[in-house]
């Protein structure tokens, strides 16, 4: 029962009399039962599609969250704790973050990882600013190459208002020119269109010129199959891991991550956990390299990060432990096969051009004749959640449509989508 006795005190005597105890127009208290009814009603006012008929992706996927993940994070020792400032009483969280760092480092093929960032978009902004620190400059010059989410671009620009780096966006990879004043080359992998592109030529050139290479990965599952950023030569990897053990949840909370080389550790933004031992030689874990952080370094900190996305990192850690190498590989292969299957089927439709690149999970489709917003309404009537009408995000993407597969789908579900699209275009 949420009941707190009211009381009369003079604890508030220092407060300015003329503005104390304002009349406020706020709702009446509801009982738990009333709140439950109300929220159930609100939840039902959102339209949720069967997961096997949800073809929306673009960085957030309807991926199965194993029940064990929800079960374990619901233990109050985990989810109600604070940031693990007192290590002896927080070994649960700290050990798990250490595991998280290990998983992310392994998956991206890098040496080390931080403990999380707010989301993929802010991780990109933090990564770019990390480049400036690594370059030991006031401001750096950075090329962001390839297709990225307009939202990521916007966040990067917002953050950059304070940083003042020079950021050049080059959508067409062929147009990238690596002048000598460039500090970093940022690549999308897979990119916003789900394309997995071989950047080796560009990267070789960057390496030769001493330009840092940053990878931004919004679908890290792909890295089970495709060359890891580490193998590609990345110096910093940032991205989004919400789809490894967490829910779409209307976009948040998500899970930004950042991995890098061991020698760049002092430039990392956010928390880091390291192993050490106690006086008796027992191993244990602590927050470390804290002199980078705001509570010690204050205005000279690598970032202002304090609370990060701890519970999401725990979710991903448990997810990866549950999936294991075998489970992760199987899932990635399953997604890849379904991606291929959907591409094949769409390619057979009139009026559509299908992406010629290698795709993973997201598939770019082009048609100059189809009204995608209308198509989506048509699909909704069949209880299908259609793809993303890309021109709503960026006018230059007119005629582009992004579909995503997921593990809940069977071939029949994909066939149903394709036949429904056909029905729509046939009128």
């Amino acid at each position, binding site marked *: 029962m949420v009941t707190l006795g009211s009381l009369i005190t003079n604890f508030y005597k220092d407060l300015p009399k003329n503005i104390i105890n304002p009349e406020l127009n706020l709702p009446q208290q509801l009982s738990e039962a009333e709140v439950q009814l109300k929220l159930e009603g609100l939840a039902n006012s959102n339209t949720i599609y069967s997961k096997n008929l949800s073809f929306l992706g673009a960085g957030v996927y309807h991926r199965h969250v194993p029940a064990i993940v929800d079960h374990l994070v619901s233990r109050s020792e*985990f989810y109600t704790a*604070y940031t693990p400032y007192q290590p002896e009483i927080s070994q649960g969280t700290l050990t798990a973050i250490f595991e998280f760092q*290990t998983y992310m480092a392994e998956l991206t093929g890098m040496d080390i990882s931080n403990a999380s960032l707010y989301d993929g978009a802010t991780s990109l902004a933090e990564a770019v600013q990390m480049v400036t620190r690594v370059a030991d400059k006031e401001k750096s010059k950075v090329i962001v190459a390839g297709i990225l989410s307009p939202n990521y671009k916007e966040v990067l620009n917002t953050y950059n208002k304070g940083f003042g780096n020079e950021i050049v966006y080059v959508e067409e990879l062929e147009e990238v020119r690596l002048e000598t004043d460039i500090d970093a080359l940022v690549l999308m992998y897979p990119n916003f269109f789900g394309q997995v592109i071989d950047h080796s030529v560009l990267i070789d050139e960057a390496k030769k010129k001493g330009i840092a290479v940053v990878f931004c990965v919004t679908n890290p599952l792909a890295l089970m199959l495709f060359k890891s950023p580490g193998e590609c030569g990345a110096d910093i990897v940032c991205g989004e891991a919400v789809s490894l053990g967490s829910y779409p949840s209307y976009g948040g909370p998500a899970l930004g991550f950042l991995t890098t080389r061991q020698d760049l550790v002092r430039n990392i933004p956010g928390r880091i956990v390291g192993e050490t031992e106690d006086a008796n030689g027992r191993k244990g874990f602590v927050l470390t390299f804290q002199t980078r952080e705001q509570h010690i370094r204050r205005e000279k900190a690598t970032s202002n990060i304090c609370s990060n996305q701890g519970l999401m990192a725990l979710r991903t850690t448990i997810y990866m432990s549950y999936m294991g190498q075998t489970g992760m590989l199987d899932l990635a292969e399953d997604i890849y096969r379904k991606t291929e299957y959907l591409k094949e089927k769409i390619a057979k439709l009139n009026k559509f051009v299908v992406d010629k690149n290698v795709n993973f999970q997201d598939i770019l489709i082009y048609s100059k004749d189809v009204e995608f917003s209308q198509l989506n309404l048509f699909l909704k009537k069949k209880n299908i959640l259609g793809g993303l009408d890309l021109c709503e995000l960026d006018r230059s993407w007119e005629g582009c449509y992004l579909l995503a597969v997921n593990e809940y789908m069977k071939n029949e579900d994909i066939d149903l989508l394709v036949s429904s699209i056909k029905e729509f275009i046939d009128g």
Partner: protein
Amino acid sequence: MDNSPIFEKVEISNKLSSIEIAPQLKRKKVCRFPDLSESQVARHYTKLSTLNFGVDSGMYPLGSCTMKYNYKILERLASLPGFLQLHPFQNDADCQGILEILYEIELYLCELFGYSRFSLQPSAGAHGEHTGLLIIRDYLKKNNDDRDLVLIPDSAHGTNPASAVMAGFRVKKVPSDKWGNVDLDKLNEVLSKEKVAAFMLTNPSTLGLFENNIIKISEMIHENGGLLYYDGANANALMGKIRPGDMGFDVCHLNLHKTFGTPHGGGGPGSGPVGVVEKLVPFLPGPLVSKDKEYKWQNQEGTEIGRIHGFHGNVNVVIKAYIYILLHGGQGLKEVSEKAVENANYLMNKTREIIDLPYDRVCMHEFVVSAEKLKKETGISALDLAKALIDKGYHPPTIYFPQIVHECLMIEPTETEDKESMDAFFEAFKDIVAQAKASPDKVKAAPVTRVVGRLDEVKAVKEPKLTFFAK
């Protein structure tokens, strides 16, 4: 060891995918992930959880963190599939329920704190500060005002200066006076010399004290042409009692994960909404929710600072805060604050019997004590006291913050603690202080009841091992 990482448990297999992919694109480096049964995973993390301490484990008086009880109904309802399964690119027609919540909670926060509008995008308190300061930055820029200095009190939280720098400002400290208030003379001095863009203030301060001169300060800043920023991480003392908007703060961020009872998650996710007065509304990061016949996302007209989050912030945390507000109602929130203040004063008045209270004033939601004298007498520091409290079954208070109080312990019981548990905490604290005098070595040896004793933080940096496979 119970805290062994999962990678120790089993042999790592060496598989790579055998699927057909062009060789130049194909991964060759094996992921060293263990292959485990669900039972092994369950046992491992269940065991790890027992090495942690949450608010359901016992009193957690971590100052400035507002470790109040997290009502379980928040978790149940925020986890309804209608919320969790919603894709952020679904169109507004599909999202009327969630948009209603975001619309309504914005109204509630505006009413409760005295602002025109709030952005719910920031993911934490620091993120809110960053956002708020970028708003100030763009506002000044729009007015061709070249102010570039942000003032912060010497008691400020570390995120304040860090955020200010991220927003492109310089930072300068303003000292506190002996009552813990801002030193007005010093403030005057800096205002007359520098181009002050904003003053970031936490009120109650991180000392747990209400800033007596807030109205005066507000006048000084505004007359000088700057803006006043409210670090609302400490809002648990003032809900329904007084509004930062009414005190003259132009921008305010809140920590929903403190004041509004959403769980801290072992370090997030939080939510740090930013509220602003009318003239700053055009600069809020878009889009915002508007209500016509339907709820919908609406972008501002090109003036906004731009997105600060990939989508709409930590929406699921916002839902929990919304539920928290409904569970309490306007009157209930006020009672929360009153009770939080009553509890802090109750515990302060007991605790001062055994340890120094540097500011002898009524406190708000928390208070600080100092072990400086105790340390001189016995060698026992704030850190030692904290570790000894662990062995008594408590989470320690915040220590060594704010930095202006030496050997500081910052204690915040919150409103959900009852008298019995505060009394028991006090008795434990008292025992430790007595032991500090009688046999300090015992206190220095604490904690002895946990899976590890005090850990060597220097070694962690000198011989860094940041992943399991690092050699």
